[in-house]
């Protein structure tokens, strides 16, 4: 009997070991590293130097807040584009649903960096889009999209759109289409049926999609470096530079933890606002 009780734990053991070895240990090590002083040549000593955080935040506050802003904007763009896509596939996709889902996932078969670089070509000053617009006189000759905040946000939204579409699709796909009919039957207009029935029921999907888009986009550095030029650096770029170029490991670790803390804070307040039953009830009223 005792042996049988142990079976589930034994089965979970590889997973727990994996997490302990590759998640908990590095996080702990990173946390320790963020409180050290020294340099690569003389070595880093543990001094519990909390000022690392103060310095990092003071120096890079601009990039940190910009990251949250870009990540948030990209998430909103993803939601505005992704919800109708998910809705359409779930209710109008018919027997081709899986084809449409595959089409949404198709860009993922190409490397992330390559996709971003192809955006750079597409949006370049005389590329396919702007070049054509300019040659037919629909855009001024000096119009540039690259190296700007919108370019970074659009690049982020493009790269992370599937993370928004799939969770919303999963919720809508499970939803009984009779619920929408019931709303119409009970005198709701299309807008009311959407706001009172479809949206509240899709909310858990929106919540998951939002997290899955906001977290990676606010920590991303590829889009900012490829599409953003020099004036739109995000916190990811800073961490990368501090770590790989300046070898300032404590600073890089301190920024990483600051970002993580901010994200966790954001997630919890987001969950309180969207995820709880009570708020959903209010939404329905």
């Amino acid at each position, binding site marked *: 009997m005792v042996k049988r009780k142990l079976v589930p734990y034994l089965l979970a053991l590889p997973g727990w070991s994996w997490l302990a070895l590759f998640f908990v240990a590095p996080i702990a090590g990173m946390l320790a590293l963020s409180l050290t002083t020294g340099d690569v040549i003389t070595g880093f000593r543990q001094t519990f130097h909390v000022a690392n955080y103060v310095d990092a935040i003071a120096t890079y506050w601009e990039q940190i807040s910009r990251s949250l802003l870009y990540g948030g904007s990209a998430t909103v763009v993803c939601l505005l584009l992704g919800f109708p896509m998910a809705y359409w596939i779930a209710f109008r996709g018919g027997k081709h649903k899986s084809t449409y889902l595959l089409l949404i996932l198709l860009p993922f078969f190409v490397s992330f960096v390559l996709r971003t670089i192809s955006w750079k070509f597409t949006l370049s000053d005389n590329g396919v889009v702007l070049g054509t617009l300019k040659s037919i006189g629909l855009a001024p000759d000096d119009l540039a999209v690259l190296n700007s905040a919108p370019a970074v946000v659009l690049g982020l939204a493009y790269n992370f759109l599937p993370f928004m579409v799939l969770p919303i699709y999963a919720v809508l796909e499970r939803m009984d289409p009779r619920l929408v009919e019931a709303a*119409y*039957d009970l005198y709701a207009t299309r807008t009311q049926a959407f706001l*009172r029935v479809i949206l509240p029921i899709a909310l858990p999907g929106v919540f998951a999609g939002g997290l899955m888009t906001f977290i990676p986009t606010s920590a991303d550095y590829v889009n900012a470096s490829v599409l953003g030029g020099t004036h739109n650096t995000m916190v990811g770029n800073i961490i990368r530079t501090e770590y790989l170029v300046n070898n300032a490991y404590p600073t890089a670790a301190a920024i990483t933890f600051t970002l993580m803390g901010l994200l966790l804070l954001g997630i919890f307040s987001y969950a309180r606002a969207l995820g709880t039953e009570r708020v959903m009830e209010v939404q*329905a009223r």
Partner: protein
Amino acid sequence: MTITAHERADMSRSPIAGTDPTPAISLHGVSKVYRSGSETVTAVREVDLNIERGEFFSLLGPSGCGKTTTMRMIAGFDDPTDGEVRLTGNDVTGVPPNHRDVNMVFQSYALFPHMSVHDNVAFGLKRSGVAKREISGRVGEMLDLVELGDRAGHKPAQLSGGQQQRVALARALVNRPSALLLDEPLGALDLKLRQSMQSELKRIQREVGITFVYVTHDQGEALTMSDRIAVMNEGIVEQLGSPAEVYERPATRFVAGFIGTSNLLTGTAGEARDGGSDVRLADDHVVRAGTALLPGAAVDMTVRPEKIRITTHEPDAALSRVRGTVTDTVYLGSATHYTVRLADGTEIVVFCQNTSDALEVAEAGSAVWLSWQPQHSYVLPEAHASRPAPHTPADPSDEETHNHA
């Protein structure tokens, strides 16, 4: 003289039809054709129906017979390919569901999972702009009517199937629609709950006096609850009438077979006398039919299993009687079901109540007499109305092919 299905439909207006002659719902030549690619499927074919105010009306038929499509066209979820839908006299063809004064109870209930019972029931009233104070009063009243007054704050998921069903009912009824459409509302409930909900539904319908249109494939349910039943098959209405009419006097072979258990006997009409006819069955037995028939006409008759007596001694010659061999007996406690094979292979089902004086138990293999009152051999109008009587008595083998045509 016999009555055609059409004439019967006219005779069987609801007794409840009140002072206002305008029907609550009427369909005129309504058809629905679905096209997918090059294929077309006719779900509903030129249906004409008048559903009276305050009536409990059932659309009964097997799955795929067009009953749900008919209801969805009344609700406005589907538009008819052809024909016209009228609600209390007004043409609503093409009017969307949110502008129709009918409400629907869905088979899956379709309760809004994120709202409380109260908010579910209040949904329609809020959308139609009823004052807040009035809403809470009407919702409370309606929840009391379905005996869920103490569950207003619960979420649908916290309720049992039967309770969810009653919430769905309250959510529709609270709007005081001119008609309530119910799409197999008891389908998901277990037998016991279904039976109690049947009488519950009837009680509620009597109390609110609203027209109920009830879609079901369960003939027992339709017979118990309805004022009138439209029996549908393959997109057409096969018969329209009261439960007793469709049961006792089925208009077509389909209705006879679909409603209850029925024994189909085929034969040829013989001499007509005393307002009835002799019918020579395929196995040369002669039985009496309670209807006068043209001599020589091919006849389809049905006899309900519970009308037949099974005996080992020869019954009174005034009765319709046939001889056969018991092939199967099923003992059910209060009753026994027998299957009896006639000489020509026709199988007849007999339901026999196990009363204290019915001690004769026939065993499989024993020869028995079956007898019934002549008026219980009901002649299907379809067969002798649609087939002209031949001048000479038909050859039995020829008759056979006719019957299968």
